[in-house]
């Protein structure tokens, strides 16, 4: 194997330290180098996906220590699928933000690009690591980058949102450490596969206490109610490409961490029901809060939290079909919400404030961006023939299979709420009376390429879902087949 999973982490780290030096040679290095690195991550992902399709899962051990003792990076169809998705979306977001803040002087762009790259690299790290403490380290890498990026604009609200996020993130890290501590004292290992193997011997009360610590800590990362108070502030105050990254990359990594801990490490009865109930509450409250928002990015942020709630519901149902639907929804959410944030950011750029009411008739000024926004809005509600339809469809089918009538009613009710607030915005964009002068900030070519590729994905997957479904199916199978995961990791020697 020429390319191994460790390249995911090494390349961004080398680049992050090299950029401040390279910027002395060429002033655009801070913009270009992260793009090269993120593109390299896409190549790594595609290579590894190809490799595991032929040879089975990869477990790379670092520093020459075998799996239970050393840190290992695991690429199964499940983690490989998520890592591929995150790296491709990360690259597209970089492409979108390439000309971001061209007017700023070099220093600030450097910080932005480095932090953005580390946030994406850390998210990939969370997904591919097989070691619980290593996961903590990556969560902190993502966290520190995200806190700084939230406060990137040196404004009043930016600092407040950043501090709020940091405070709750500090709680998350403390609780995660306590959870890891309890697990380590009980099982004597940090390797997730070995923890899962030894978990049946752990006393029940220790399991429950550790699980509560993990649920609180990772629930903060995954934006689970009531731990998601930071999310709307952080999404709305961060620069727009960062908001897209929060939705498409960071929340995916957070949900992955939660699911990996709940599904693989612990074998506690009833936690699925907990996920289902909390997901339901998260979805309901977030979507109701989204209706009353006057600020476009806050509305999109609440919608993101609502989608995460739906993902948690589907994981809570727990059947193979439901997990399939949940993974499909994670993919769709990443793609569609990035598109919405990208398009919405151009609206905000062209209006004085971030309010929805100043979008009246913006269709005349920005026809292409308006089209992308409308497409994204319809797709995330779940209109056929867009990709969002299929994920919601499969989640509903799986809920029907398990006879959760209330879930079906709730999901459909929430869809109506989504319809209301998205079409309200789309209606303003297209049908309200125009006011003001022509657009001063036309979308740049790279942003258009990024948005078109996401839109193309939405339409193509909507029409031919079979293109992606085998990959998602094998990912769902890999997640649910816990004993195979344990056995493979503890037996692989290389």
């Amino acid at each position, binding site marked *: 194997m020429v390319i191994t999973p460790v390249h995911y982490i090494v390349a961004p780290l080398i680049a992050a330290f090299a950029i401040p030096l390279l910027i002395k040679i060429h002033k655009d290095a801070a913009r270009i180098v992260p793009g090269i690195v993120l593109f390299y991550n896409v190549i790594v992902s595609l290579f590894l996906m190809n490799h595991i399709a032929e040879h089975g899962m990869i477990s790379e051990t670092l520093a020459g220590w075998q799996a239970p003792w050393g840190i290992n990076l695991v690429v199964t169809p499940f983690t490989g699928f998520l890592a591929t998705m995150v790296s491709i979306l990360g690259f597209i977001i970089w492409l979108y933000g390439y000309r971001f803040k061209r007017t700023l002087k070099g220093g600030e762009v450097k910080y932005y690009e480095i932090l953005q790259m580390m946030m994406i690299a850390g998210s990939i790290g969370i997904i591919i690591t097989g070691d619980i403490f290593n996961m903590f*380290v990556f969560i902190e890498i993502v966290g520190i980058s995200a806190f700084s990026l939230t406060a990137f604009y040196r404004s*009043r609200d930016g600092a407040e949102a950043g*501090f709020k996020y*940091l*405070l709750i993130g500090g709680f998350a890290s403390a609780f995660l*450490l306590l959870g890891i*501590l309890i697990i380590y004292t009980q099982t004597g290992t940090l390797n997730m596969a070995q923890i899962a193997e030894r978990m049946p011997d752990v006393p029940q009360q220790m399991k429950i206490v550790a699980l509560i610590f993990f649920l609180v800590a990772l629930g903060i990362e995954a934006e689970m109610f009531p731990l998601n108070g930071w999310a709307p502030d952080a999404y709305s105050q961060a620069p727009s490409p960062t908001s897209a990254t929060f939705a498409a990359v960071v929340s995916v990594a957070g949900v992955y961490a939660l699911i990996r801990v709940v599904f693989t490490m612990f074998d506690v009865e009833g936690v699925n029901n907990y996920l289902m109930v909390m997901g339901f509450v998260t979805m309901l409250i977030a979507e109701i809060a989204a209706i009353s928002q006057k600020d476009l990015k806050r509305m999109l942020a609440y919608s993101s939290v609502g989608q995460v709630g739906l993902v948690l519901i589907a994981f809570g149902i727990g059947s193979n079909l439901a997990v399939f639907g949940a993974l499909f929804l994670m993919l769709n959410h990443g793609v569609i919400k990035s598109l919405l944030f990208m398009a919405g950011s151009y609206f905000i750029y062209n209006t004085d404030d971030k309010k929805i009411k100043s979008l009246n008739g913006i269709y005349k000024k920005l026809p292409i961006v308006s089209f992308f926004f409308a497409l994204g809005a319809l797709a995330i509600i779940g209109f056929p023939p867009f990709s969002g339809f299929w994920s919601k469809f499969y989640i509903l089918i799986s809920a029907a299979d398990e006879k959760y009538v209330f879930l079906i009613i709730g999901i459909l009710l929430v869809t109506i709420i989504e319809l209301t607030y998205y079409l309200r915005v789309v209606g303003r964009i297209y049908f309200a009376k125009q006011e003001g002068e022509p657009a001063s900030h036309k979308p740049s070519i790279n942003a258009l390429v990024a948005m078109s590729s996401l839109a193309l994905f939405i339409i193509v997957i909507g029409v031919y879902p079979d293109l992606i479904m085998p990959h998602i199916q094998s990912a769902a199978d890999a997640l649910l087949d816990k004993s195979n995961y344990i056995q493979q990791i503890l037996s692989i020697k290389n």
Partner: protein
Amino acid sequence: MMEFQALFEQYRDLITIAVYGTAIALIVIGLYAVLMKKHLVKIVIGLSIMDAGIHLLFVAIGYISGGTAPIFSPGNENAGARMVDPVPQALVLTAIVIGFAVTALALSLVIRLYKHHHTANIDQLNSLKW
């Protein structure tokens, strides 16, 4: 050295309780400061104290009484059973570095908040709401 060992053996239970008790007390004090104090700097200090408590707890669980440093040196090859567990120590080193970074970032944000709001009282930072 031998005297110290003997003294340690004599009060071992007491020392164990003291170490674990201190760790738990630090975590509780930190939690209290973060949740109850209004001043931003005090909140950041509370976060640090809570981290310190967790780190102490980590080191404490790795310790075995009378243990040696986890190094295999010549003439000491079979010392594995008497060594303290090196893993929690490695974890604590990492966690300290992370905690340091978070504290530094938090303090810089506090300075920026103070510049904008001219107050460090968290109750008066309420421009962002649900």
